[in-house]
C-alpha cells in the first residue's frame, strides 16, 4: 500500500508542514514580543530607579548666594572610579552653555552627555528624562561603558537652571535581557517541537481511517474482502458507501456479462448439435465441412464459456464453500454415472474444511478430475484431503487405471487435449481444471499413484467455515 503518488505531496506531510510553518510564525512573534516586553520592563525599572535618584539629588540641592550646595552622597558606587553609578550637576548659563558644577568621583574626568532631545526636551518637562549614554572608557580597552541615564532640569529661585544627570552601567540589565531572551527562545523551540510532534500524532491518528480505507479498498481489489466496512467516521462514511456501491455495481456488471456469455454459449449449443447431427446423417463433402466447422464452433464456445467463468474469479469474493458436501455429492453422482463399470470412490474429508471460492467452481474443478479418474480407473478411485498449510488445502485424487506417462502429462493440461478419442468427453476437462485452479491462485500437478493410475494433486485456497 502506498499513500503517496510520485509528484503528489502527501497529505500527512502537507498538514505537518502547514502546522509547522504556522507555529513557527506564532512562536517567533511570541518570542520577539516577550523579549521586547521584558527589555522594556527592565529598562523601565532602571529608569524609575535613576529617576528617583535624580529626584533625591534635586531635593538635596540648594543654592546659597549663587553657590550650588551639593548634598553628601555616600553610595560606594558613586565614589569609586567607574564603579557603575554616576551623577553630574551642571549649570545652564546664558546661551544654553552648560557648565559642570559637580559630579561623582566615579566619573573620573568623563562628562555625562545630555539626552538626545537636548536642552529643549528637558525644559519641556519637570520630570526626569531617561536616555542611553556613553560612559567612561573602560580601562581594559573595551570601549565606553554603556550607561542608562536620567536627566532632570530644576530651577531654584532665580538662579540659573541646573541639570541633574544620573547614570548607571546597563551591562547587568542587558545581560539579564539577553539571558531572558535565550531562555525564552529555548523554551519556545521546545514548545514548537512539542507542537509539531503533537500535530504529527494528531494527523496520523486523525487520518487513520483514511489509511484503513485505502487498505480495505486494496483488500477488495485483491479479493480478500468483498466490501468495505461501514464503520467509518461521518466524513468518510459516504465515500465508503459510494465505493461499496461501486464495487457492487462492478460485480453486477461482470455477473451480467458472465450470464450473457453463458446464455449465448448455451443457446449456440443446440443449433450446433442440430448441425452436427444433420451433417452426420447426410454423408458427403458438405457434411464433412459442416461437421468439422461445427466441432470447431463448439470448441470455441466451450473455451470462451470457461474463460468467462474464470474471468469472474478475478473479481474475488469472500464466499466460503464447505468441501465435504461437494465431494460427497460428486462421489454419489459419479458412482451413479459409472455404475455399469462398478467404480467405487473412497473419500475422506475434514468436515470443517472450507474452500475460499464459489461452490460451482469447486464442483467444476473436483468434478472434472474425479470424472477423469473414474473414466480411466479399473474400479477404484480415492480422494484424500490434506491440510498441511493454513492458507491452502490439498486434494489428491488417484485411480487404479493405467496411468499416464510422464512426458504426456503436460499435454493433458492444455486446452482441448485428448489422449484417447475413444473415451467420451470434450477433452477440455483437465485444462479447465488447470485454468480454474490458477484463477484461484492454486495449482494442479500430476504424478504416479500407488494405486497404479494417475495421481492428481490440487492445491486450493482454504477457509474455515
Amino acid at each position: 500500500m502506498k499513500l503517496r503518488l510520485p509528484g503528489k505531496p502527501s497529505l500527512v506531510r502537507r498538514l505537518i508542514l502547514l502546522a509547522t510553518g504556522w507555529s513557527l510564525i506564532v512562536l517567533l512573534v511570541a518570542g520577539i514580543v516577550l523579549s521586547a516586553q521584558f527589555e522594556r520592563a527592565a529598562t523601565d525599572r532602571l529608569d524609575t530607579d535613576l529617576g528617583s535618584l535624580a529626584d533625591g539629588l534635586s531635593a538635596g540641592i540648594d543654592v546659597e548666594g549663587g553657590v550650588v550646595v551639593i548634598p553628601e552622597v555616600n553610595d560606594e558606587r558613586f565614589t569609586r572610579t567607574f564603579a557603575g553609578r554616576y551623577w553630574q550637576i551642571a549649570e545652564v548659563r546664558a546661551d544654553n552653555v552648560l557648565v559642570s558644577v559637580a559630579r561623582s568621583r566615579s566619573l573620573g574626568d568623563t562628562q555625562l552627555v545630555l539626552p538626545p532631545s537636548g536642552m529643549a526636551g528637558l525644559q519641556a518637562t519637570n520630570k526626569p528624562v531617561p536616555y542611553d549614554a556613553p560612559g567612561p572608557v573602560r580601562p581594559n580597552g573595551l570601549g565606553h561603558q554603556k550607561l542608562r541615564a536620567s536627566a532632570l532640569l530644576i530651577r531654584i529661585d532665580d538662579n540659573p537652571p541646573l541639570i541633574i544627570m544620573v547614570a548607571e552601567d546597563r551591562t547587568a540589565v542587558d545581560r539579564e535581557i539577553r539571558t531572558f531572551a535565550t531562555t525564552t527562545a529555548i523554551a519556545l523551540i521546545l514548545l514548537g517541537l512539542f507542537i509539531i510532534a503533537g500535530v504529527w500524532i494528531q494527523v496520523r491518528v486523525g487520518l487513520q481511517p483514511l489509511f484503513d480505507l485505502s487498505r480495505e479498498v486494496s483488500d477488495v481489489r485483491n479479493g480478500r474482502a468483498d466490501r468495505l466496512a461501514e464503520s467509518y467516521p461521518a466524513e468518510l462514511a459516504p465515500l465508503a458507501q459510494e465505493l461499496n456501491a461501486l464495487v457492487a455495481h462492478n460485480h453486477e456488471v461482470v455477473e451480467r456479462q458472465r450470464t450473457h456469455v453463458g446464455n449465448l454459449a448455451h443457446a449456440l449449443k443446440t443449433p450446433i448439435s442440430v448441425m452436427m447431427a444433420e451433417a452426420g446423417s447426410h454423408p458427403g463433402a458438405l457434411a464433412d465441412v459442416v461437421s468439422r466447422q461445427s466441432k470447431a464452433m463448439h470448441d470455441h464456445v466451450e473455451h470462451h464459456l470457461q474463460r468467462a467463468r474464470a474471468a469472474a474469479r478475478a473479481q474475488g469474493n469472500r464466499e466460503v464453500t464447505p468441501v465435504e458436501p461437494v465431494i460427497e455429492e460428486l462421489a454419489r453422482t459419479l458412482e451413479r454415472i459409472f455404475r455399469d463399470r462398478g467404480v467405487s470412490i473412497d473419500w475422506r474429508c475434514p468436515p470443517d474444511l472450507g474452500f475460499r471460492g464459489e461452490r460451482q467452481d469447486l464442483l467444476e474443478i473436483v468434478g472434472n478430475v474425479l470424472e477423469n479418474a473414474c473414466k480411466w480407473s479399473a474400479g477404484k478411485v480415492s480422494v484424500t484431503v490434506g491440510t498441511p498449510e493454513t492458507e491452502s488445502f490439498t486434494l489428491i485424487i488417484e485411480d487404479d487405471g493405467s496411468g499416464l506417462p510422464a512426458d504426456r502429462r503436460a499435454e493433458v493440461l492444455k486446452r482441448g487435449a485428448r489422449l484417447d478419442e475413444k473415451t467420451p468427453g470434450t477433452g477440455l476437462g483437465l485444462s479447465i481444471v488447470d485454468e480454474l485452479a490458477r484463477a484461484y491462485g492454486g495449482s494442479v500437478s500430476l504424478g504416479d499413484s500407488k494405486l497404479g493410475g494417475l495421481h492428481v494433486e490440487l492445491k486450493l485456497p482454504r477457509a474455515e467455515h
Partner: protein
Amino acid sequence: MRVLIVEDEPDLARQLRTALGDAGYAVDHAPDGEEAAFLGDTEPYDAIVLDLGLPKIDGVSVLEQWRRDGIATPVLILTARGAWSEKVAGFDAGADDYLTKPFHTEELLARLRALLRRSAGHASANLACGELRLDPKAARASVDGEPLRLTSLEYRLLHYLMMHQDRVISRTELVEHLYDQDFDRDSNTIEVFIGRLRKKIGADRIETVRGLGYRLICLPGEPN
C-alpha cells in the same frame, strides 16, 4: 421399446425422432414441460430423453415431479448446460444419465441402450434367448446365426419380448410399449404381428397364455 423425447427445439426434436425411430424405438415427442409432465405421468415409457431448458416448466422440475409421482422410468438428461453443478442437480432430481450438447447421435443411442438394459436388469449389450440373438446397437436379430428380416414393428416386438423374456406380457402392455401415441391403436394388430413374428422365428418360441398375454420361450438347455 417406447421412448419419450422432451425437446423444444423443433429441428433437434425431428432429428431425434428420426434417429430413435431408425434404431427401432416407438417415439413420442413433447415440446414443452407441461406436456412432458403429463405424458410421462400417463404413458408407460421405457425411457425418456429430457432436455432441461424447456418452456412452461423446466426439465429438472418435470423430472422431480415424475419421481414424486413414483415414475421410475429411466431418464437421460440432454442439455447445453454441462457444468458439474448442473449435472449434480440433474442426478439429484433423479436422472439416470446426462448428455451434454452438442452430442453425437451414436452416443445418445448407446447411452439409451445402456439405460434400457440396466432397467431391465441385463448385463450384456446383446440379448439372447436360446438360439435367438438380438443386437440393439445394430437393430438386428438372428436365429442360429441366420439374420432375420424384420419390419420395424416386428423388431420392436421381438426386442420387447426379449427384454422381458421371463414373464408373461399382456397385449395392452405390448400396445403401450410398441406404438407411439399417434398410432391408431388396435390390439388386434398385435395378434397379426405375433403371427408374423412366429413365422420368422419359429411358432413354438412365442407362447400364448390365454387371457393373460404372450411369453417368449427360451428352449431348455439352450444358453440364456
